[in-house]
């Protein structure tokens, strides 16, 4: 597919002149990454099954409805409070399948290892993957291993791909979002990003902040079994809650209004964000998602999520309307609305 002769390739609409080489912002989960996908990948990979607005593709194969997804993991540091790259590699892909409303079944795992990486550390990572796979009910059935010269990798990179089965008729996608839907968040935000950053930068706060990484499929399947009219699901990874909501609003051409006061952020994360000059709404998570469900099912959804994630404070944070299509607005604490935007790239520490 990549071997298409040059003269047949569509003209490149991607404004290379702005960034003639790849920058960190191209992978930051913000608007610069979005443009890379929309303007380079999407037009060149275009086909009837291509899915660039969702975490995974829904495919119909021999009468079965499948979900298929892949994700790469390059987290630095490899080990962080509450998990490691192996935990993420399994949960990340399992969660992407869950966001398609699928029951995760099988995973592949590819390792790019750097010469000199301790095998003891690798074993710890693989044990974490085994544990995470058991926890989320998937089987790791195939994989690949490559080793690169010392200095040409970063210890270990992992890519996982996953297949899940869709056993229901719900059309879970941004395009199913309707005015009157409510936005429900399964717990407090920001723990993963802060845990990783704290470890990487060597900050020491009075209390330890652990990553929120967790499998989400079981809770999604419970919502489906309970007959909740789910319209859209999105896990909050890079770019945090803000980027997830902005993407949903843009691709559904609906307005999402959220209430800042309703967004749960634990005290430890709030304190760390305050010191580091970060906004928790943009900080990464690995075990949090938003469900956009029909208004009539709001209370039951919160109850189910509360029972799946006890003590995390699942809550309604906003609702969908037709007011300003494509925009997310936040009600500030003095009751005035403002726009919620994606960041252009990564969130950078500020001067003052």
């Amino acid at each position, binding site marked *: 597919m990549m071997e298409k002769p040059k003269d047949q390739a569509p003209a490149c609409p991607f404004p290379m002149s702005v960034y003639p080489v790849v920058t*960190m912002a191209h992978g930051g989960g913000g608007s610069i990454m979005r443009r890379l996908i929309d303007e380079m990948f999407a037009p060149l990979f275009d086909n009837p099954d291509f899915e660039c607005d969702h975490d995974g593709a829904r495919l119909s194969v021999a009468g079965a409805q499948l979900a298929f997804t892949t994700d790469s993991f390059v987290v630095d540091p490899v080990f962080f409070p509450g998990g490691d790259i192996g935990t993420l590699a399994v949960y990340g892909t399992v969660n992407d399948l869950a966001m398609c409303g699928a029951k995760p079944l099988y995973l592949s795992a590819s390792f790019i290892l750097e010469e000199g990486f301790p095998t003891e550390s690798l074993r710890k990572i693989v044990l974490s993957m085994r544990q995470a796979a058991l926890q989320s009910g998937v089987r790791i059935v195939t994989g690949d291993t490559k080793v690169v010269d010392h200095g040409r990798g970063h210890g270990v990179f992992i890519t996982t791909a996953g297949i899940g089965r869709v056993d229901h008729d719900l059309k879970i996608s941004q395009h199913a979002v309707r005015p009157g839907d409510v936005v429900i968040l399964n717990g407090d935000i920001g723990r993963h990003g802060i845990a990783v950053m704290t470890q990487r930068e060597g900050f020491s706060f009075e209390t330890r902040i652990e990553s929120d990484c967790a499998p989400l499929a079981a809770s999604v399947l419970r919502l489906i079994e309970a007959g909740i009219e789910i319209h859209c699901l999105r896990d909050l990874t890079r770019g945090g809650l803000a980027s997830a909501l902005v993407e949903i609003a843009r691709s559904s051409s609906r307005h999402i209004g959220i209430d800042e006061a309703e967004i749960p952020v634990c005290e430890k994360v709030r304190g760390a964000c305050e010191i580091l000059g970060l906004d928790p709404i943009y900080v990464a998570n690995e075990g949090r998602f938003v469900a956009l469900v029909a208004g009539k099912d709001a209370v039951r959804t919160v109850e189910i999520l509360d029972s799946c994630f006890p003590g995390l404070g699942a809550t309604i944070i906003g609702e969908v309307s037709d007011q300003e299509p494509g925009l997310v607005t936040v009600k*500030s604490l003095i009751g005035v609305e403002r726009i919620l935007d994606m960041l252009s*790239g990564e969130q950078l520490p500020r*001067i003052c």
Partner: protein
Amino acid sequence: MKFLDDFRDPALAEQCTKAILHLGTGHWKIMEVCGGQTHAIIKNGIDRILADRVTLLHGPGCPVCVTPAELIDQAVTLASREDVIFCSFGDMLRVRGGGRDLLSVKAAGGDVRTLYSPLDCLHIARDNPQQEVVFFAIGFETTAPVSACVVRQACQHGLRNFSILNAHVLIPPAIETILSAPQNQVQALLAPGHVCSVTGCAEYERLSIEYGIPIVITGFEPVDILQGIHMAVSQLEQGQARMENQYRRVVQYQGNKAAQALVRQVFRVVDRNWRGLGVIPGSGLALREEYEEYDAGKRFGLAESGAEASTSCIANMVLQGRRKPPDCPAFADTCTPERPLGASMVSSEGACAAYFRYCRNYKHANVTE
């Protein structure tokens, strides 16, 4: 979080808002000086909720915005060198001068490192004796003491492979430039709380007397800002003009004397070019002669590029509070945070960036008369 949550309390904020709206009858133009305050105002919608009584003008207090294009080009030149490890605060990385930004330099293989504490530079310099470590020292009176501290420690420890690319500027001369301009519309000032926590209040007292306007040293949380505005409006309604301190939980009249002494020991006051405002006499800090070997400009013999920002935007007017971002024909059209034309769009702290991020859908609200 003690001392923060109290100042984000919706009930208190509402009380303050009502108090301002019911105080007297005038309509007042008040400038908040600091970019951090501008962001809190736009993010929380304080300007819109008070629009009937107060027009908030946004000042020049965004250090990233006012760093001259030529200095950013010098940073890019240094960061591109193979023998240099270039250290910077995060929000300088996406700012362009006449050419590339530091993120692009990093992407092309330059060793550009984001710091939380400038003191980390010293460890980096010690760990990399074969490399030159350069710190992009930017900011107002708030960050100058830390830069002074780093330079002094480098000197004490005899570190020869460390220097700073210095862009430190001072707030009061910029305020004087704005207040003394014939077109000045500012009737009261909210002075930057964190700057004053270092410098103290005396200079702002002098400005208040000299220019006959109320100056309220103000914090950064919504209730701080509302209280600061309330204090300024009270003075305006009563025809008073004095310096007041709203941010007493942080700012003492004398300021931080140790920090002041450190800055005086390492830096001297010089004229400085501000992006969007031009050269302002006595508005910059340069290293004193005994610390000049730590000046990256001198060490690397950097030439001034003479680059200046686009003139198709009105950033200079915005930085002086004479126009608002939506007044600019380029705003949110040809000028966006990803492709900024002017100083106040380049940094996330800038007024144009704040309007773009939080309320570009209200494009025609609050346009300055």
